[in-house]
């Protein structure tokens, strides 16, 4: 939701980045204020996923220009774990499986690590169990998720729910959801979206990275951005998503080029 006078959480200016020598981001600008939900849409290969990984600090991407400020600090100077502790959360498109590590053990370790760095109390195993079970209700997850290995043998929907469960526990200021709707059936999509909606509040912000408009029926964005060739070329309200759904992406590029010519 857009709040009057809310403060800026994330400010990206002219971000350029390479992966193995190929330029993927070419001057991306984005401003996200607390309370807002943003959707970044665009065709495959436009750089959406790269952008979300760069925000989380993936080392495979080399930032070659521009700035990223998060709550007044230079995000690009922080290691991935420092970003997580500072309140940046990335829900992965393909969460990894960790056979051999129990989900409960994993969740408690990450929770306590982040809590400690935020100067808050750790929870012992019993307290944590109560806490996590409460959060799991939000995502309609059965408690036996806790007994299984992290994401091992989880269905696509279960993995995504487990991602949002981690988001619920780590309580980020900025959550980036990378293609969270991919591979979800309609029931799982509704559950995941419902969880995200309950987590959204006036102090945090959510960036949804998605190829399809479908997710936006459930999580209603305040802003919709269209990415193409490594930058945001159009920004609108939630109705832009519907237009993209019916007209596709091509017209945005055409319109963008026409505007660029007119102003040149």
């Amino acid at each position, binding site marked *: 939701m857009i709040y009057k006078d809310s403060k800026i959480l994330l400010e990206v200016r002219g971000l350029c980045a390479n992966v193995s020598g190929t330029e993927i981001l070419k001057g991306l600008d984005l401003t996200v204020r607390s309370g807002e939900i943003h959707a970044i849409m665009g065709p495959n290969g436009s750089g959406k996923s790269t952008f979300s990984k760069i925000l989380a*600090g993936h080392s495979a991407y080399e930032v070659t220009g521009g700035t990223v400020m998060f709550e007044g600090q230079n995000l690009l100077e922080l290691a991935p774990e420092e970003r997580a502790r500072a309140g940046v959360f990335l829900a992965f498109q393909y969460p990894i499986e960790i056979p051999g*590590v129990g989900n409960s053990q994993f969740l408690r*370790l990450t929770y306590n690590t982040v809590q400690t760095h935020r100067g808050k109390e750790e929870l012992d195993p019993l307290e944590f169990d109560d806490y996590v079970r409460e959060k799991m209700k939000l995502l309609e997850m059965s408690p036996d998720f806790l007994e299984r290995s992290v994401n091992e043998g989880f269905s696509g929907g279960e993995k995504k729910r487990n991602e949002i469960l981690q988001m619920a526990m780590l309580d980020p200021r900025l959550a980036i959801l990378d293609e969270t709707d991919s591979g979800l059936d309609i029931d799982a999509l509704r559950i995941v979206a419902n969880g995200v909606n309950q987590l959204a509040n006036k102090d945090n912000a959510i960036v949804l990275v998605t190829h399809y408009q479908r997710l936006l029926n459930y999580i209603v964005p305040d802003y919709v951005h269209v990415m193409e060739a490594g930058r945001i070329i159009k920004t609108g309200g939630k109705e832009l998503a519907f237009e993209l759904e019916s007209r596709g992406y091509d017209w945005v590029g055409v319109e963008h080029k026409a505007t660029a010519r007119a102003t040149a």
Partner: protein
Amino acid sequence: MSAPGTINAGYLENLLAGQPHLPASPLAWLNALRAEAVDRVGVLTVPTLRDEEWRFTDISQLTKMSFHPVRTTISLQVADIERFYIEEATTRLVFIDGVYAPQLSSAITDNGVAVVNLEAGFAAHAAAIEPYLGRLTEFRDNVFAALNTAFLLDAALIVVPRDISVAVPVHMLFIATQKDVVSYPRCLLLAESGSAVTVIEDYVSLQEDAYFTNAVTEIALVDNARVNHIRVQREGAKAFHIANCAVSLARASNYQSVSVAFGARISRYNLNVQLAEEAECAVDGLALISGRQLADTHTCIDHAKPHAVSHQMHKCIVGGSAHAVFNGKIMVRQGAQRTDSRQSSRNLLLTNKAHVDTKPQLEIFADDVKCTHGATIGQLDNEEVFYLQSRGLSETAARNMLTYAFGAEIIERIPISSLKCQLEQTVLEQTTIQP
């Protein structure tokens, strides 16, 4: 160049020196077995890197040392060995330097079930064990199995009669207490038709000097029997450990095995599994080594008959300048149609000096089979490390967790929870690098 044959002969002669002192058995076939083994030791030589089966594993250090059979047995108290006990496994056979320790063991003879030292099982089971003892292991072509058989006296004998399930796991605990001693641990497990049992074969040490464990285990599963076999090799840091295990699965029997190797300076485990029709086995292993350790696992899974299933996952975590070897042969014989075999060898190198040789080998002589195998050698996956970092864990913590998980995936398959926890703790300690 010195003549290796001469060195070997002297070395083996030396090892055999204590053999004539063995008391003769009342069983003529057992005496004949030992005599044959002595003959074979006279003919065979100690393998070198020139032998195909030993080309990655240099045991010349072993032959440079002089080991003698145990002369005086050390008497231990419960307090000395209690820490090795496994809560669930209240049936226990304890061997100190290869010698049976009745006062520390809880042998059972009950309902036809025998968990005893070999000699005590003769009266009731001599005829039943004769076809298997010394027969499952091919000691005629294997100098270490031959040496063990030449010294065959004390042994863990487990006989589970038809349709009996032994509820409590059996712990066979082999404790090394003396330096320069060679011991010959021996196990024989006979699971009769439709029976079920879980056994733990456990090698531990109370001292850190060099010694030599040369073990042989034979396991026979009659039709429809089920055996869970957990093998834990946690020998002392300077130990030499060479073990041969042969498992024979009759029709529709099921063998599940997890073996872990943490200890010994040099260890070699040969496991041969032969499958009859509709038999199933899962053979999993973990070697977790560091420093200058060498751990070699050679397995051969022999699909001799149709419709059998074998699954194998072997993992090595190698740190320091340690060296791990895995050689996994899957043999599918002519006529073994509808064989279903899956093998995977996964290896994690923690340092630049760590080394692994892995050699999956498929030999298929039947045409209607499903066989997959694969091997990976590598370091931790950066995407996985990033995932954990993105959840707030430091890079070191992320790497530790993934290394631990790599090993824990095998440990998790152990069906005895206290042992599982204990070994998970060992993996955790050995894979944790302080930041």
